[in-house]
C-alpha cells in the first residue's frame, strides 16, 4: 500500500515526534517548575531562552543548533571527541531539532497546570510525612497531569510538522531524517514528483487526525482520573 519511501517517511515522523516528546518531557517539567516556583537572578532570562524557539524562525533555530552541535561546535565537538556521537544527518538530530522547536509549547502547557495546583494540598502532604520530593511525585505531579498530557500532545503534533529547523540542522537524508514534511518538500522539488507529494500529503492528514483522536481520548481519561467532568 505504501512505497518504501513513504513508509520511511511515516516511520521517521512518528519516531522523531515520539522521541522528541518523551525526551523533552522531564526537561519541560523541570523548566516549568523552575520558572513557576524559582526565585533567582536570571529567571527572566531563562524564560526568554525557553521561549526563543517560539518566536525565532525555525531555520534560525536550526542554524543555532548547527553552530552549537555541529561537528565543529563547542558541544557537538565535545560529543564527537568523547563519545563519537554526531547529531547532524541522524534521526537523533532530527528529534533534537523537533524537540527544541516544540519545547516552549510544552513548558507553557505544563506551567499552566502547575500554577493551578493548590499549594495548600502540598503543605497538607508535608504534614502527613511526605518529603518535598515525595510531595512532588505523589501530589503535585498527578494534579499536573492534564497539563502534562496537553503539553505532550501539542509537542507531538508540532514535531510531526517541523520542517525548517530539521532540514537546516539534520539535513534531508532519506531513511534518517527525511520526515513527512521533508519528504513532501523533496517530492515537490523533483520533476514528476506531484503524485508522490499528494500521497504524502494525504498520509500527513491521516496522521494528524489520528493524533487529534488520541488527544481527545487522553484528555477524557485524565479528567476522569482526577474526578472532574
Amino acid at each position, binding site marked *: 500500500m505504501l512505497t518504501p519511501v513513504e513508509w520511511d517517511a511515516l516511520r521517521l515522523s512518528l519516531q522523531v515526534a515520539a522521541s522528541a516528546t518523551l525526551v523533552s518531557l522531564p526537561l519541560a517539567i523541570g523548566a516549568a517548575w523552575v520558572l513557576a516556583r524559582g526565585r533567582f537572578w536570571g529567571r527572566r532570562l531563562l524564560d526568554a531562552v525557553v521561549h526563543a524557539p517560539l518566536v525565532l524562525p525555525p531555520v534560525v533555530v536550526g542554524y543555532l543548533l548547527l553552530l552549537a552541535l*555541529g561537528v565543529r561546535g563547542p558541544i557537538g565537538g565535545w560529543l564527537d571527541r568523547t563519545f563519537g556521537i554526531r547529531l*547532524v*544527518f541522524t534521526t537523533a538530530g532530527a528529534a533534537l531539532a523537533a524537540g527544541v522547536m516544540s519545547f516552549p509549547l510544552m513548558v507553557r502547557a505544563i506551567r499552566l497546570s502547575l500554577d493551578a495546583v493548590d499549594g495548600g494540598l502540598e503543605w497538607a502532604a508535608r504534614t502527613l510525612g511526605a518529603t518535598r520530593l515525595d510531595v512532588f511525585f505523589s501530589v503535585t505531579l498527578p494534579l499536573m497531569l492534564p497539563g502534562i498530557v496537553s503539553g505532550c500532545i501539542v509537542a507531538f503534533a508540532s514535531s510531526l510538522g517541523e520542517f525548517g529547523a530539521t532540514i537546516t540542522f539534520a*539535513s*534531508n*537524508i*532519506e531513511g534518517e531524517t527525511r520526515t513527512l514534511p521533508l519528504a513532501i518538500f523533496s517530492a515537490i*522539488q523533483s*520533476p514528476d514528483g506531484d503524485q508522490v507529494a499528494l500521497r504524502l500529503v494525504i498520509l500527513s492528514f491521516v496522521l494528524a487526525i489520528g493524533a487529534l483522536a488520541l488527544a481527545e481520548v487522553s484528555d477524557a481519561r485524565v479528567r476522569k482520573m482526577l474526578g472532574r467532568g
Partner: protein
Amino acid sequence: MTRRWLLAVGVFVLAASADARLEEPALTVFAASSLTPPLEQLAARARTVTGARVRFSFASSATLARQIDAGAGADIIMTADDTWMTYLADRRRLESGTRTAILGNRLVMVVPADQPIVVQLTPRFDLGRLIGRGRLAIGDPSHVPAGTYAREALMALGLWSTVEHALAPADSARAALALVERGETPAGIVYESDAALSSKVVVAGVFPDTSHRPIVYEAAIVRGRDTRAARAYLAFLRSTEARAVFTDHRFTVK
C-alpha cells in the same frame, strides 16, 4: 482624533505607492545559486547598461524552474543544467529564440581547508577511505544539477556504489559547499566556481571532463517578458567585461 490617524495612514500609503510608481524599471533575474558572486558583482554595471534595476533570486535550478512554471514573476532565468531549461521550454515558458549558452564550469571535490589533501579522481581512487564513517556532500541528485553531474561523474569512475548510501544530499551546490565548510562532511562535490569563493575549503581534485556531460549554464527570457532591458541584460552577459568577471570566479566562458 481618529480622523487625523486615518489621514496620516492615507498619506503614508499614497507616498509608498507613489514611490513605487516613480521607480525605474526593474529586472527580475532567477539564477542558479552558483552564479551568485559574479552576477552580484556585475549588478551595478548591469544597471547602467540596461537602464533597469536588477533584482535576483538565487536557488537551485530545479526550484527556480518550478517557480517559473507556477507563474513566478521572473524576467530572466539562468540555469546550471540544460535539463531544467528544457523543462521550461517544453512547457512553453520561454520566449522563443532567446535561449543561449553563457558559461561552463568544472566539477571538483573539495575538503575542509584545515585538512587539505590532494587526490587523483580516477577509478582507482579510494573514496571510501576519504569518507570514512562520514558522508559525501553533494547536491540532491534527484533535482539539483550539481548533484546530477556529481552522480554521473561518480558512476563514470565506478565510485558511485561506494558512496551511494553515505550521501548528504543538499538542496543546492552552495548548501553542499556549506556542509564541507563546517566540517560536517569530510568531503563534497561542487562546482569549481563555488570552491573558489570559500576560504574554508580547498580543492582536492578535479573531475575529468570526460566523466560527465558538459556543464552548461544557459540563460533565457521568460515568455511574455521580452523587453529592451531583458535583451540588453542577456547581451551584457556576453560582453567582454562580464566574461572577465566570470573567468575571475572560475567559470569557463562559451
